[in-house]
C-alpha cells in the first residue's frame, strides 16, 4: 500500500515534509516495546507506536521500517524528528489510538507484519 494512502487513512500529518511519501509499504506493525519491534517485525513495513524518543527512529532503521506513525496525536521530540529526516524515514502523527489505527489500516488491506522471523 502506498504511504500517501496510509497517511490519508490515518488522517495523519506528515512531520517530515521533505521526505518522499510515494513509497510502497508492505505491512504494518504496532508496538511500544522496542525489543518487540526488533524481535518480531519484518522489513518494509510501517511502525505504529506511542513512543516519541529518538530510539524509535533508530529501532525503525535497524528493523528496516519504511515509515513511523505516532498514535493519539503525539508529537516527536526534536531529536527524533531530525534523525528521521536524516535517515529518510517519514514520521507521521495520527489522531487515532493504536487499536483504532491498526483496525483502519488492516481493514483497508494493509497486512499484519507481526511474525516470529527475524
Amino acid at each position, binding site marked *: 500500500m502506498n504511504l500517501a494512502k496510509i497517511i490519508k487513512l490515518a488522517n495523519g500529518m506528515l512531520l517530515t515534509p521533505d521526505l518522499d511519501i510515494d513509497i510502497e509499504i508492505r505491512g504494518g506493525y504496532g508496538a511500544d516495546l522496542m525489543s518487540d519491534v526488533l524481535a518480531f517485525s519484518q522489513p518494509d513495513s510501517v511502525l505504529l507506536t506511542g513512543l516519541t524518543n529518538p*530510539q524509535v527512529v533508530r529501532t525503525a532503521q535497524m528493523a528496516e521500517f519504511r515509515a513511523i506513525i505516532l498514535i493519539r496525536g503525539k508529537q516527536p521530540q526534536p531529536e527524533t524528528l531530525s534523525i528521521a529526516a536524516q535517515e529518510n524515514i517519514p514520521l507521521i502523527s495520527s489522531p487515532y489510538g493504536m487499536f483504532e489505527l491498526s483496525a483502519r489500516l488492516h481493514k483497508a488491506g494493509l497486512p499484519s507484519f507481526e511474525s516470529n522471523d527475524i
Partner: protein
Amino acid sequence: MTSRTPTEQEIYGRRGRLITDHDANKISRIEELAYELKVHDVMTADMHTASPDMLMSEVLDILRINRISGVPVLQDGQMVGILSLEDIVRAMQKNELSAPVSQYMTRSLITVAGYDTIIKALQAFTDSRLGRLPVIDENNKLVGVITKGDITRGFLTALQRDYKEEEVRRYRASHLFEDIISDRTTLVLRYNIKAHDFIRGGNASSHIKRALLRLGADPQVARRCGIAVYEAEMNLIIHTKHGGILKLEMEPHRITMSTTDDGPGIPDISQVLQAGYSTASEQVREMGFGAGMGLINIKRCVDKMDIESTVGKGTKLTMRINLPIENSNTHKDK
C-alpha cells in the same frame, strides 16, 4: 574581543536571504555544482577567432563550417570585440558582407574570468542576454569561450563523475578482502559508547549497519548484525556506569561483535538470559526498553553469543555471525 558587522553574504547566504538548515537540505547537487565548478572547467579553450580586418563573409564561412554562432575578435593576441551571427545578419541586410569585421563587431565586452564560478557565468548570461561569453585569465588574455551548452555539458559530466566515484567507492569497499592479501585480514570498527546518552543511542549501530552494506554484506546479515549491536549498544547506555566500547571485527568468513564495559557487572548471568528479567529503571522502560528482551533478541540474531561478567569489574558480550564462504547467499541459523 573585536566585533565587526557581518557581511551581507553571511547574513543572507548565497541566495539573497537567510538560509536555514531546512533550506540547506533542499539545495540540490546541481546548485552545489554551480558554486563548485569554475568557468575554466567547462569552457571551450580550443576556439575559433577572427581578426578586425577579416571580411564579414570570411567569418560567415568560419561560423557555417564549424557550426558555431559567434567568435571573439583578436588583434595582436588582445581581444578587441566579439562577432556573432546577429552582426552578420545586420551586414547582410545592408549587403555589406565585404565589410571588415571591425565595422560590425560588438566592442562593449562582457567577459567572465576562468576562475569565476558557473553561477557567476549564468548571471552574466542572464544580464547580458548573450549566448556566448569570452573567458579571460588574470592578465585579461583571452583563454576560451563559454556557452550555456558548455555549462549543461559540464553539469552532466560532473554528475556522472559523482556517480562513478560512489560506484568506485562501493566497489573498493566490497572487494577489500579480495584486494588485500594476508594470512588473516580483519577490519575492526570501534565505537566509544557513553553511559546514559540516550539521544545518541543507536548512532554507532547505524554506522555499523551502513558500513556492512557498503562492504557488500548480505542485507539479511546486515539486518541481523544491526539489531544485535543495537541491543548491545543500548545495554551499554542503559546499564553501565561509565559506558563502554562497541567493537565489530569483520573477516571474510565471519563477523564478530563485542561490547566491553567496566561495571557494574552481572551477578547471575543465567538470570539475565531469562525472558522478561530486567533491572532497568522506570525512565528506561518509558523509552520502550528494559523489558528484559535484549539479550534474547541478540541470541536470535547471531550464531553464537557469549557473556562473561564479574561484579565490580565489568562485562564482556561477544556475538558472532558466520558468513558463507564464496557465495553471498542468505545464511540463517535454524
